[in-house]
Structure formats: structure tokens, C-alpha cells
């Protein structure tokens, strides 16, 4: 039942990343890579630096040391819109949707980097502007169908229940047609059915669109089931890296989660 897949090409590699806020070391000397096409999980206890790691990858935090190599280009840091332009999209731990806008508009914002018409045509809303709007609407409708959220297309997202908001946020990230999708706790706070749905979407995105996925998740059942490789952080340090089965048997990981007597 568990798929074993092998990957050759490295899409993103972080090398010796260190990040500190004042005297607090959030990440120290972390290195790992994400292969093209895989589902990579980052796990670890609370405060281990998982979200900080994602924030470094998409340029929201700038690590003091280390380098990030993405698609063969080595950078000491990313910038947010540069990451977006290079095909990195993400969702957030606590939902970061645009609450005043409808589901449709939220997902449309995911395509902003592809919409080019200027102020003049936008003001008239004819010609290129109208064509562009319809062309992107068509792409967005595919995502709406894929995520099965047709019925809430025109509902302001602020009124939606939590599970659906998570789904809309995934839709917004998918609308950018990313090569690398970062998911920060996509299943947090969900019930079992919602988790199953979300797992299905993550696997389908990976299978159908070939999107590489890096996800942070606390539900070990989910992580061990869907991810190809797992990296484990604890107190900003990497304590394990490997296939789910190796991680399950890793003594350092077990100690980090269950505690150890000193």
C-alpha cells in the first residue's frame, strides 16, 4: 500500500541554514534537499523551527548564514515576490486568506503574476483586459472543480467554515501553478473526514500536476502515509532525515517526541 518511489533531480537544497532572532537561535546549521516530484515532510515538536524553515525558503525570513539552491541557482536568501515568480507557492498555518473577498476572487489573486494588462485597459475592461480575465477565470474554475468548492464560489471567505477556508487557501496556492508547494500544517484542526479529503487533494496535486510538495504536519499517521521522505527538526537542529520507516525507528526522533530521562 505504501508507495516507494525514487527521485533523482534535486529541486531545492538548503545548505547550513542558520537563523536567529536576537539571541534566540531558531535554526542552526540545517541542510536538506527536496527532490523534484516528491512529497517531503518536515516534522518536529512545537517550536522546533519548522515554520521558520518554510519562511526562509519562500523569502519571508532571511537566514544569517547558509544558502538556498533552487532550480540550480544558489542564493544566500530569497525575496518573497522572487520566490513567487520562481514558482514557489505556500499556505499558512493560521489561514491567511483575503477575508473580504469571495472564494473566486481569492483564487484569482493566485494568478496575479500572470495577469499583465495595465491600468488603461483595466479601466475600460475591454479588449485584452476582458480576454485576460476570462482566460484566467477558466483556469481558476478548473481548480474550483478539482477542490470541489463550486458551491461557495461567490461566498466571502470570511463566512466559510475553517475546513473550507483551508481548501480555498490551497486553491489560491494552486492557482499560481507552482513547481514547489509549501504547506504549513494543512490538516491542523480538521476532523477525520476533512483530513482524508485534504490528503486526497495533496496526493492528487502531486500525481496529476507533478507538483513537488513540502509540508509541515503534526498528524504522524498522515505524514508517514503520504510523504516520500521526512526531515525532523528539534530545537532548531536537524535530528533525522529519511524515509518514513527509518524515521519511525530513529532513536533521536523518538526521544524528541517522547522525552528522555537525563
Amino acid at each position, binding site marked *: 500500500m505504501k508507495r516507494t518511489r525514487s527521485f533523482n533531480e534535486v529541486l531545492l537544497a538548503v545548505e547550513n541554514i542558520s537563523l536567529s532572532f536576537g539571541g534566540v537561535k531558531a535554526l542552526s546549521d540545517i541542510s536538506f534537499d527536496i527532490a523534484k516530484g516528491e512529497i517531503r515532510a518536515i516534522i518536529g515538536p512545537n517550536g522546533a523551527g519548522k515554520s521558520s524553515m518554510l519562511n526562509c525558503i519562500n523569502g519571508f525570513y532571511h537566514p544569517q548564514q547558509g544558502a538556498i539552491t533552487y532550480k540550480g541557482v544558489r542564493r544566500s536568501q530569497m525575496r518573497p515576490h522572487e520566490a513567487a515568480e520562481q514558482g514557489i507557492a505556500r499556505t499558512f498555518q493560521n489561514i491567511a486568506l483575503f477575508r473580504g473577498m469571495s472564494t473566486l476572487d481569492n483564487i484569482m489573486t493566485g494568478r496575479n503574476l500572470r495577469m499583465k494588462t495595465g491600468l488603461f485597459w483595466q479601466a475600460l*475592461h475591454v479588449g485584452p483586459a476582458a480576454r485576460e480575465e476570462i482566460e484566467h477565470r477558466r483556469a481558476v474554475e478548473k481548480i474550483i472543480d478539482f477542490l470541489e468548492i463550486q458551491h461557495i464560489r461567490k461566498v466571502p471567505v470570511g463566512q466559510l467554515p475553517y475546513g473550507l477556508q483551508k481548501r480555498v487557501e490551497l486553491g489560491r496556492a494552486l492557482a499560481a501553478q507552482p513547481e514547489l508547494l509549501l504547506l504549513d500544517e494543512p490538516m491542523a484542526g480538521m476532523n477525520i473526514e476533512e483530513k482524508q479529503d485534504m490528503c486526497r487533494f495533496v496526493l492528487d496535486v502531486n500525481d496529476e500536476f507533478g507538483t513537488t510538495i513540502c509540508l509541515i504536519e503534526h498528524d504522524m499517521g498522515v505524514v508517514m502515509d503520504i510523504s516520500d521522505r521526512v526531515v525532523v527538526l528539534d530545537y532548531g537542529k536537524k535530528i533525522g532525515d529519511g524515509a518514513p520507516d527509518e524515521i519511525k525507528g530513529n532513536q533521536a526522533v523518538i526521544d524528541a517526541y517522547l522525552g528522555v530521562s537525563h
Partner: protein
Amino acid sequence: MLYREAGQFKTTYGADQQIFPILQDRLFVLAVIAAAVLVVPLFATQYLYTEILIPFLILSLAAIGLNILVGYCGQVSLGTGGFMAVGAYAAYNLGLRVPELNNLVIVFLFGGLMSAAVGILFGLPSLRIKGFYLAVATLASQFFLDWLFARVKWLTNYTPSGSVAVGETSAFGWKIDTPAERYLFILAFVVVATVVAKNLVRGHIGRSWMAIRDMDIAAEIIGFRPLRTKLSAFAVSSFFIGIAGAMWGFLRLGSWEPLAFDINRSFQILFMVIIGGLGSLLGSFLGAAFIVLTPILLNQMPGWLGVGMSTALISHLEFMVFGAMIIFFLIVEPHGLARLWSIAKEKLRLWPFPH
């Protein structure tokens, strides 16, 4: 039962994305515009034009401009009066110094463009400061512009009192001097400007403004550039406000001094936007109507009811009742009159059933 959208199926995305997807809404708006063009001139008096319709339309346009900035992009501004002044003085100076271009359409657009440029300049701090602090920063622009037009005599053509007067007002050979002509000219301008504003807010530029308003960090992460987005909102907003300012000077006042665009004007427009509904173009019109019409109604009411009252008492009552109404509306519906209107429409769609 008339307000039903059943049976109106959309088969293309274009049809689904039009401004008024429901047929009845389209007919209603066309009827309102037709009535404003054809029916109003049949009975309107000079008083109705100069004291009610013209101020209502011009201030609606200013409110649309401010609503783009505050309601759609979330950047609070108290500099509206100053930007109106820029539009008015820029239009005045172009007409004065380049007589060949003394055409209302051209000078108004020039006023709008100058105002947009000044808006971009004063929008720069918005990258670093937010919310109330930005409001205070824009207040500085209001005071600076007040000072500029009072002190730099070239801008007022060295008139001793600092008050300027416009000469002939015409557009493409059409001499616009009777109140009815002014009204129709302003109406045409406002209708076009409203369509432009609607097109902008429903397209990707409008979505970028709303994204910045709702969650600026997420907006940046998915690729919007905060500075460019905010400055485009300042520019478009100031453009509309500048045109409204030029209209106010040319077609409402005829001659004015810097006091016409002081801080009170800024507050008045901001109240229109808040009471009408943040992030709603219809709200801009409703807010302007409320602020322009209610004091006049309250002032006339005792006379109509045959209650004998002193003028002083009437004007005191006017302030008290007006203030109470503002508080009442804000408590009943903090999202403004536009939300009340959409709730009413929702009820009408279901009528006679409760849900």
C-alpha cells in the same frame, strides 16, 4: 416577486462577470440614469440644481475616489481636501496660462493627473506606516497643501485676496453656464468615472488592492508588490478626487479661496465613505446623498410640518438630529448604507418567504 433571477442562466464567464449580472439590476440602473438625464430637467429648479444635485454628484465622485483608497486598499487618508485643492488649482492654472486648452474636459483631466502625482508623493510613507499613523501622515499633506495654496502666490495668479475666479466654462464648443447644463455635464462625467472605477475594482488591479487591505503579508508572498499596489491606489484615488475638486471649483463655486478645501472637507468625504459603506461604489453615492441631503431635509422639516420655530433653534436641532442619525446608522449597520441596501435586496429576492 418581480425581483427574481430564476431562469437567468449564464453560459459564458463573460456573462457571469458583468457588472450587474441580474437583469432587473441592469434595467433599474438604466432607468435611474435615463430619469436623471431626461426627467429631472423637466421640473428641476435652480435651487435643486445648485444646492442639491450638483453638490451630491461632485461629492459622490470624491467619495468614490476616497473609497478606492480607504475602502478597497485599506489605507486611511485625511488628505482628501488637499487633493481636491490640487485638482482645482491645477485646472485653474492650466486654463489661465494655456488659453487654447481651456476646455473643461481637458483641464479637469489635467487636475486629476496633477492630483494623482501629488497623491503618489504623499502615498510613499504608506509602505512604512499603517492605520491611524498613516491617517496622521496624510493629515500632514492636508496642512502642507493648505499652506501651499495660501502662500505661493503664483498658484493663485497673485490675486490680492488669494481667491481665484474661473472665466468662461466650455467643453468642445459647448458653453456650460446654466445650472441645467452644468448638471448634465457633471452627470456625464460622474457616470463615466463610476464605470471606470467599477472596472478597476473588479479586475486584477482591484484584487491587488483588496489583497493588500485584507492581509498584506500573504499578498506579498503570493507576488503582489506592496509599494506598487499602494501607490497605484493612491494615484487612482487622487485622480478621481482631483477631478472632483476641479469640478467643485469650476462648476459649483465659480470662484474660491483655499478655505474651500480645508480639513473639514476631508472629514466630510471620509464620513460619506464610512456611512455609505467601505469598499462599495454604491455606498459612495448613498453616503454622499445622506451627508448632502439630510441637513437640508432637517432644515426644511419644521417649515413643512407647520411648526413655528426660530431659525436658530432649527439649526441647532439640525446638528443634533444629524449627529444622532449618524450614530444610529453606524450602530444598526457598521458596514454602511450599502450593506443595508444589499440586505434589502436579499430579502426581496426571497419575498414572500422568510428564507
